[in-house]
């Protein structure tokens, strides 16, 4: 635990931790529209603005589309902007996501991961953010409330870096993280100020240096702007690692960059996860290890930019790997599985991979479920190819039989 005596210890939910991180980051503008399970973030922020502990312009808009539009308006005059959403709200602002990233506006947004209708569901899975991977936003998936607070601060540092200038989405698992209470260390404002400089960008409306902003392109120029965005996202990898390193120097906490591994060094069977289910997976890894099975878990923190080198290096020596997707691209496979498989393409020996589709619409994933995943990974290298291919995509913890 942190020994910084200036830290304040609090027992808060993931949502509250984000609000505390936002206040420390000194945004100028907060545009807010509530949606379960993000509501507590925007409610806490409104209380903070009301009581004066957060000096910011709080704009209560009438929809998420407007929330993103207002954040863009703020960013375009050089203001540091924040907004938050989830699920249906994220999709409602979908065109705004592309606008913000294409406009190189380093907005930071918290997304509470929640399933998408239909059927209507308020419960958590990753379908909302995974369906927005192509929107040009940097995407991080945090595991606990402490990381949620820390990444909110780091997010502005990464997004606003002059070589990046790309908006960043912080994903928290709906309910499992947003509404679960745990111990969080809140750093003092002075330390955050020393880490996070004020926002400065060349892309802002100004009387001294007038700009034409948000223009259109013909086929002659569009690809050049898109290439720039792609390059900036690729360059952000180093910025992310540096931001993490400097954060550790000041605050004493590191998250190891783009991925976070547990017991992967000599692991034969590795499960790839994202978000707070990793915590349950760690317990399962300990349980498997106590039975002599060399299990490990690879937590992907950033889905964009995708840590393909780190993933490739970590999975190279495994006998088999599993990817636990809380998402499914209907008609094919889970999105993380697709991304991981591509990272392994072209390597001399590709271990066998199994996609575990679980947790959709808030379905529980238990330690036992994950132990069964490791058991499946243990058995699959020995199967013949046809057998393996037939059972490569598996839905976990179904309440009914799905066999014909």
């Amino acid at each position, binding site marked *: 635990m942190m020994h910084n005596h200036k830290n304040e210890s609090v027992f808060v939910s993931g949502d509250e931790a984000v609000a505390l991180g936002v206040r420390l980051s000194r945004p100028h503008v907060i545009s807010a529209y509530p949606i379960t399970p993000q509501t507590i973030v925007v409610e806490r922020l409104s209380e903070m603005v009301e009581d004066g502990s957060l000096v910011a312009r709080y704009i209560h808009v009438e929809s998420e589309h407007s929330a993103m539009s207002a954040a863009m308006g703020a960013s375009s005059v050089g203001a540091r902007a924040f907004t938050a959403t989830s699920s249906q709200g994220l999709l409602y602002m979908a065109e705004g996501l592309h606008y913000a990233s294409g406009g190189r506006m380093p907005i930071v947004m918290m997304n509470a991961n929640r399933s998408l209708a239909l059927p*209507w569901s308020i419960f958590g899975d990753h379908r909302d953010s995974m369906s927005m991977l192509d929107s040009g936003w940097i995407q991080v998936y945090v595991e606990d409330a402490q990381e949620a607070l820390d990444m909110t601060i780091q997010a502005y540092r990464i997004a606003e870096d002059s070589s990046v200038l790309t908006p960043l989405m912080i994903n928290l698992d709906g309910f499992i993280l947003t509404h679960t209470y745990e111990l969080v260390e809140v750093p003092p404002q002075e330390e955050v100020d020393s880490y996070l400089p004020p926002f400065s960008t060349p892309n802002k409306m100004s009387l001294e240096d007038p700009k034409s902003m948000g223009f259109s392109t013909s086929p002659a120029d569009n690809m050049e702007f898109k290439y720039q965005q792609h390059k900036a996202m690729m360059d952000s990898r180093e910025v992310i690692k540096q931001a993490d390193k400097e954060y550790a120097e000041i605050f004493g906490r590191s998250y190891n960059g783009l991925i976070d591994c547990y017991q992967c060094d000599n692991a034969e069977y590795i499960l790839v996860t994202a978000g707070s289910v990793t915590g349950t997976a760690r317990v399962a890894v300990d349980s498997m290890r106590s039975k002599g099975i060399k299990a490990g878990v690879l937590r992907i923190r950033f889905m964009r930019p995708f840590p393909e080198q780190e993933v490739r290096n970590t999975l190279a020596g495994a006998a088999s790997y599993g990817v636990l997707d809380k998402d499914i691209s209907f008609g094919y496979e889970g999105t993380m599985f697709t991304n991981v498989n591509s990272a392994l393409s072209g390597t001399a020996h590709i271990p066998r991979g199994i996609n575990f589709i679980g947790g959709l619409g808030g379905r529980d994933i238990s330690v036992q479920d994950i132990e069964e995943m490791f058991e499946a990974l243990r058995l699959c290298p020995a199967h013949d190819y046809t057998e393996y291919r037939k059972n490569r995509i598996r839905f976990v913890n179904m309440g009914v039989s*799905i066999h014909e």
Partner: protein
Amino acid sequence: MDKPELKNFTKPESIKDYPVGPSFSGGHLVSVNSGWRTFKPVVALDTCTGCYRCYLVCPDGVIVKTEAGKVAVDYDFCKGCGVCAHECPFDAIEMVKEDLQK
């Protein structure tokens, strides 16, 4: 107003038993709510004037008009919220602590 129709619902055992998409037959309930109460409304029929204000304000629609021109509570579905007692202009309804001896 009639009592809701109570239908027994058994969870599907096979994926084939699920409806195609989120659409299913309507107009019924699958459980009673009587276990939810701590207090239950008791109507003093001598005081009741049959103004039907409670019938109007009950959020669950469990107060019914009787042939005698008064009201009665459907205790299978009353959740004990107390709005009826609060709204009765004649204080004819009292919220009484439920004895859970079964």
